[in-house]
Each structure stands twice: as structure tokens, then as C-alpha cells.
């Protein structure tokens, strides 16, 4: 009997999913808004570089002012964090399109009755979401990095900061894996767009406020805000902490953050598996 492996099917599923998302006009509107801050940063770096040529002394003053554009690891780290909040809405829409509308007109049955199993279906969709996340966070960050290097003193900057590239890619992969799993789990349980949007928005706005309020009041007097373990409730912040490790930046609560992210991913995987099995029997 032929093997029951179907690794070949993952890329077609991902490709089709992304194709479906790109065909929606609303996606490009949301994508344009998501790229707004990238364009501003791109322009700022460009202005800064030209300024360094014409008025060197002015440039020193401005770079001291604009600390977060000094080309170090934190520049890109903060950029990717800012992109995250804007990406959140885009992902809610993409999630409901690439996974949600499979359940609307029997698409799920189309996949399941082929020579694949639901594991490969989930992996394909996850790859699609992951690539979207990379498209919005990692690729723009890499563009900014190379722009910064090319416009500035090229050789020296690249040689010195080349590990930033690994930082950007590492943080991007971390984001796409964890957010991808979480979104896929949420969408398979709640394919209808309205409740999905509210829940997903709540996750990214609610939890940060919850964790900052709890941290601020329940922490000991000496422990400053960022070290209180209540901050671990804010998933977005955990990703930021673990991501900054890739850039060699040490932030408190690192191990706590890793554990939280790991449990969230594990929980999402089991949620996806049980839901898809239920849908397969149900439809």
C-alpha cells in the first residue's frame, strides 16, 4: 500500500491560500495601511543619510535626538514590534479568508477527500499565515537594514552588524510560528468573521492592558514594572522579549516568556487538531 505521507501537498495548499487572500481588494487596503509606518521609517533613514553627507554636525545632533534610528538592533526590533499591532488586523482578515471560507461552501471537504490528512491541511494553512507575517514584518525590516547599510558607510556597517540579519529573521520566524498557530486555532473554532475580529482584537489590546494593570499594582515595591511576572500575560510583549534575545538585547523575564509562548503554541496545536477532526467527521 502506498505510504500515507503527503508532504508534497503542503506547498500547494499554502500557495492557494495566499492566492485567495491576495485576490481580495480589502487585503490590499489593509496591507497599504500596514506598510504606512514602513514607508515613514524608510523615508526617515533616507533623510538621515543625506543629512549626514551635507551637514555632519547637524546629523550628530539629530541622531542623538532620534535614538531609535541609530541602525542598531533595537531599531529593527522596535520597527517589527510596531508593525505587529498593525499586522494584527490584517491577519484577522486573512485568517478568516484562508481558513474561514473553507467552511462556507464545503471547501474543507474538498481538501479532506484528497490524498492528504488534516495534519497536512493544517501545515499548509500555517505556512500561508507564516509567510504573510514574514511579508509584513521581516522583509520590510531587512529592506530597512540594507538601506541603512547602503546609504551609510557600507562595508563597515555590514561587517559590524551582520548578526542583526539573523536577529530579524529569528524574530520573524518566532512571530510567524506562534501567531500563525494561535490564529489558525482561533479561526478553526470561530470561522465567522465578526466574533473572530472581536476576539482577536481583544487578545492584542485587552491582554496588554490587563497585564500592565496587574503588574503595576501587584508588584513589590522594588521590582520595577517590566520585571513583574504579571507582564507575562501580554503575549505580544513575550514575543518582544524573546525576539530581542535574537538581537543580543537582554530583557528581564526571558525564561518566563519562552515558557508562556511554548504553552500557547502547544495549546493551539491541540485545539487545531481536535477541531479539524471534529469537522472532518461532522461535515
Amino acid at each position, binding site marked *: *500500500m*502506498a*505510504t*500515507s505521507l*503527503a508532504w*508534497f*501537498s503542503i506547498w*500547494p*495548499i499554502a500557495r*492557494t491560500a495566499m*492566492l*485567495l487572500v491576495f*485576490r*481580495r481588494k480589502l487585503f490590499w487596503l489593509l496591507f497599504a495601511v500596514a506598510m504606512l509606518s514602513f514607508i515613514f521609517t524608510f523615508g526617515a533613514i533616507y533623510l538621515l543619510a543625506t543629512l549626514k553627507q551635507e551637514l555632519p554636525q547637524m546629523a550628530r545632533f539629530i541622531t542623538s535626538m532620534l535614538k531609535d534610528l541609530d541602525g542598531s538592533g533595537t531599531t529593527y526590533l522596535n520597527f517589527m514590534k510596531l508593525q505587529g499591532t498593525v499586522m494584527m488586523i490584517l491577519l484577522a482578515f486573512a485568517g478568516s*479568508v484562508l481558513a474561514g*471560507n*473553507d467552511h*462556507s*461552501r*464545503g*471547501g474543507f*471537504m*474538498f*481538501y*479532506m*477527500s*484528497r*490524498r*492528504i*490528512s488534516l495534519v497536512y491541511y493544517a501545515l499548509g494553512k500555517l505556512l500561508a499565515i507564516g509567510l504573510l507575517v514574514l511579508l509584513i514584518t521581516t522583509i520590510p525590516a531587512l529592506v530597512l537594514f540594507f538601506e541603512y547599510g547602503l546609504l551609510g558607510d557600507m562595508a563597515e556597517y555590514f561587517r559590524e552588524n551582520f548578526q542583526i540579519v539573523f536577529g530579524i529573521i529569528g524574530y520573524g520566524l518566532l512571530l510567524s510560528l506562534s501567531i500563525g498557530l494561535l490564529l489558525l486555532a482561533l479561526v478553526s473554532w470561530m470561522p465567522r468573521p465578526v466574533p473572530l475580529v472581536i476576539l482577536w482584537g481583544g487578545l492584542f489590546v485587552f491582554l496588554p492592558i490587563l497585564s500592565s494593570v496587574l503588574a503595576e499594582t501587584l508588584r513589590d515595591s522594588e521590582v520595577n514594572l517590566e520585571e513583574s511576572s504579571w507582564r507575562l500575560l501580554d503575549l505580544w510583549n513575550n514575543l518582544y522579549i524573546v525576539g530581542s534575545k535574537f538581537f543580543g538585547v537582554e530583557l528581564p523575564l526571558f525564561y518566563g516568556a519562552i515558557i508562556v509562548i511554548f504553552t500557547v503554541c502547544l495549546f493551539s496545536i491541540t485545539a487545531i487538531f481536535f477541531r479539524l477532526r471534529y469537522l*472532518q*467527521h461532522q*461535515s
Partner: protein
Amino acid sequence: MSHLFEIDSLVHRYGSIFALNEVSLSVDQGSIGLVGQNGAGKSTLIKILLGLLKHTNGTVKVFGSDISQHSVGLRGRIGYMPEREGIIPGLNGIEYVGLSGELNGMSRKIALRRAHELLSQLGLDEARYRRLENYSAGMIQRIKLAATLVHDPDLILLDEPTSGLDPDGRAAMLALLKSLAQRPGKSLLFSTHLLGDIEHVCNHAIIMEKGKIAASGALDLMLESQLNTFLIRWKNKNSSSNDVYLAALKQSGAEVSLSEEFGQARVVVTDAWSKQQFFKLAKEAHVTLIGLEPEEIDLRTVYQRVVGYKKNLPPVISLKKPEVSEVNS
């Protein structure tokens, strides 16, 4: 060659409802019709054959290997056309069929080439780049069939392929299924509640009722006609001549039962009767006879006899109930 599929005391329960209740069946290659009311268990049986549903107990073997172990591998050799829509809105025709091929292990290039061939065969040439949500019901059924056939499966499972089709679509679909049924070495399972379609396409029929196999056998076995029973149809100027004609028929020894439709009756005559008698009596009663045909039992009558739906039912002909039915023995 082993059987196409063998099912042994299959039971499947949704909570307390028995979707399938002790089904035992073994069928060889060929085109099989699966007939039954909505909810008789047809779709459940198909999903179990596909390995999408873990049946409660019993063993199911397809192409000789157990479905619960090799469901993914087996699905590579089976094509399934679902009853519910089963399309992905947003894709166009070629991409949809191409994807179906790729998901069955074909490379992208071969899948797309095969898709182009199939679409032209199924008359969807000009619709190949149109989005699926703009397809009419008939085109959706044909594109789903194309997606089912793209990887050249040995067994095709069709769940209500003709529902929602207009007459041309239905006639075209049935002709297509007929040609598919004749492909050497390939078989086809055609599940529907439209009884007429089975006679066109299949050579073997399974009648299901409330999760059980009510009857299963070769189609021609089931459909032998009864001698000297006729269905007559006539037109007349006024209704009085109607009764005159019927009375005349009864007098000359025919047993007449009126059918619901106006101007139609089922007549059982003795062997001595000559056909001219119908015309002679009609002429005397000033009635023009426009239809006289020996009553072939069609599947509908067999179905109604076995399932017992119609109120005034002619006597049930004994169908051999299959404990283990060796169908093509």
C-alpha cells in the same frame, strides 16, 4: 482480483441514531447505483468508504485493504464528488482542478495539463478562467466532476451528481457518467434519490432504507417485466365516454386500475386478449387511444415496492434478501 469493496456487519452511530445498522455487502468492479431516501445512510456509507469517518464497528475493505489503516493511501485511488458544494470560492476553474490533482500527488505541470484536457472534454472551455462563485449550478457539478477525475482514480464516488441540474446539464452529466462507467478496470458508485438516473448508468443497484440494505442485485435481474400487463393512455371529447370505455374493458374480462393522472390506467388482461381489442373498444366508445405499452417495471416501482411508500401497492415481488449476496456469481 479481489472485490472492489467488502463490508462486514458495519455499524455507525451518531449518538443514539443508527446511521448504518449491520450492513454487509461485497461488490465487484462495475458501476453501482446507491438509491435511497434522504437520510437512508447513503452519504454516511460513502464517507466511511473514503476513510473520513471512523465507523463504530465492523470491517470495511476497499481494493482489498482495510480502510481504517490505509485511508490516506486509498484516497489516492478514489475520486469523490461531494453532495454539498465542495468548491473553494475565489479560485477559477483551472486552478481548482489543478489543485485537486496536486493534492492527489501529481506534479503541478501534469495536473494543470490534465485539468485543461478535462475542462475541454466537459465543455467548460470558456469558463476555465472564470471564478467559481460565478459558475451556474450545472457548471459547478461539471467542475467538481473534473476535480474528481483529474488523478484518474480507479473508483469514483458520486453523491447526488445530478441534483440542481437543468435537463441539458442532467442529460449531459448522465451521458458522461455512462461513458465513465464503461472505462475498463474502473468502477463508479452513483448515489442519488433520483431513481431514473440509475437505470441509465449503472449495472448494479443497492437500495438502502433507514441504514439497512433493503435490496441489492444486478439491475437487469431486478427489472424483468411482468407479462400481459399494459399501461394505456387515451384522449376523449367528454368524460362520459371515459366511463363507457372503462366499463367496456372490464366487461371483456380485463382487470383495470385507474392511475392518478387523468386519462391513464393500468390494465391486466388474460392471454387470449389481442391488442386490437383495445383499439376496437376505444373506437366504439369514441375515444382515441394515444398510448399502449407493456408495463416495464422501472426502478421507481421496485423501489416503492421494497420501501413500501406508495399507498396502493401492487403485490411485492420477492427479492432475494442478501445475507451475504454473491452478486455476480
